[in-house]
């Protein structure tokens, strides 16, 4: 069986990743594709329990390094239980966040070192490399204002200072620049419908390219 396509949504809080992942999933299903939509941290029962630890406001004193390991723990389980089997089964896998979230948040945001975080995650990722990373780019102030407007409860990750989010955003943009073959940056300050259209064009092209390649 042909390996499926691995699509990752990345971006800071309030960029609309989970909504776009769902919209894309629905659209692909309408075209008859087999799709799995999942998220990190989480995606598995064990992963969701880890997410509950990292997103609990009671854990504001969680060490950045411990946080990095918890994210990797969730990821290791996620890759082995969900992502790798689904790809092997020919599904299009869409995940809301993957390893580049750790590089952007812990590596750039918390200054733990980009190489260190990449190395720390090497075994967790286990060679599951995204074919396409869609970076939904918004200035942190816009994303956070959105969350507030939606009245979403502020979890721990949302109450950090502004310069942290600025470092995360710049980190993402650096990742996009250094991995331009798989990254696409989408302006996510626009409406959800407009962003969804941009995302769809990107994915449609990626699928078309893939078909071309398999014909060769």
């Amino acid at each position, binding site marked *: 069986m042909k390996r499926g396509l691995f699509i990752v949504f990345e971006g800071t809080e309030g960029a609309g990743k989970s909504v776009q992942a769902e919209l894309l999933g629905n659209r692909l299903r309408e075209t008859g594709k087999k799709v799995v939509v999942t998220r990190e941290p989480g995606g598995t*029962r*064990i992963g969701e*329990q*880890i997410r509950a630890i990292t997103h609990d406001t009671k854990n504001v004193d*969680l*060490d950045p*390094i*411990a*946080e990095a*390991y*918890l994210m*990797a*723990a*969730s990821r*290791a*389980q996620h890759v*082995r*239980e969900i992502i790798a089997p689904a790809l092997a089964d020919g599904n299009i896998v869409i995940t809301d966040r993957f390893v580049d979230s750790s590089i952007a948040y812990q590596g750039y945001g918390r200054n733990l070192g980009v190489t*260190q975080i990449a190395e*720390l995650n*090497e*075994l*967790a990722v286990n060679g599951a490399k995204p074919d396409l990373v869609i970076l939904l780019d918004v200035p942190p102030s816009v994303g956070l204002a959105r969350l507030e407007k939606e009245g979403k409860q502020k979890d721990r990750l949302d109450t950090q200072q502004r310069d942290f989010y600025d470092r995360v955003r710049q980190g993402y943009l650096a990742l996009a620049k250094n991995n331009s073959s798989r990254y696409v940056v989408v302006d996510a300050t626009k409406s959800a419908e407009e962003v969804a259209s941009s995302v769809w064009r990107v994915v449609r092209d990626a699928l078309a390219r893939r078909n071309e390649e398999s014909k060769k």
Partner: protein
Amino acid sequence: MKGKLIVFEGVSGTGKETQAKLLQKFLATQKIKSNIVFHPSPELKEIFSAWRKERSIDALTETYLLLADRSSRVRQQIRPALEKGEWVISLRNYVSALVYQGKTEKDWTWITNEFLRFEPKPDYLFYFDITPGDAMKRILLRGEPLGKFETPTLLNEKRKNYKKILQAIPHITVDASQSIERIHRGIISNLHIV
């Protein structure tokens, strides 16, 4: 760092915890304050046993959780205690992750490198050695439900792993089949404090 870090390693049923308590009492008579810490922490141990029951956790997921757990423990408890001049008796350290979660030598290198980012080097590492038969007898005497690795075959396999891994790590072997008192005296004589 002024305090000393003592690590007790070995399969279950070797009497590590009993010896830690005895050592702590002895150190108190020498006016040395000490802390007993567990690896994994009791909290994580509980999570592991609950999760292993409901579904399979990947060994690598466990390793990452151990790393998260230990890195917090080192920063919040072990380093501050050592810096104050207190001693720390750690029941297990990353050697256990090598024995229980590592499968290949490549895993061992990776696990070691990750832990050594934060783990202080022990001043003394005592390896409690016992035959699987004797270990099982003691485990059954505890009257608690058996852990994941507590079968004679697995205990034997883990003992072999310990011996292989410890070839590369400075340690003192303790014959854990001896009497409690004798083991205690042996440990003290190795510490060179009196």
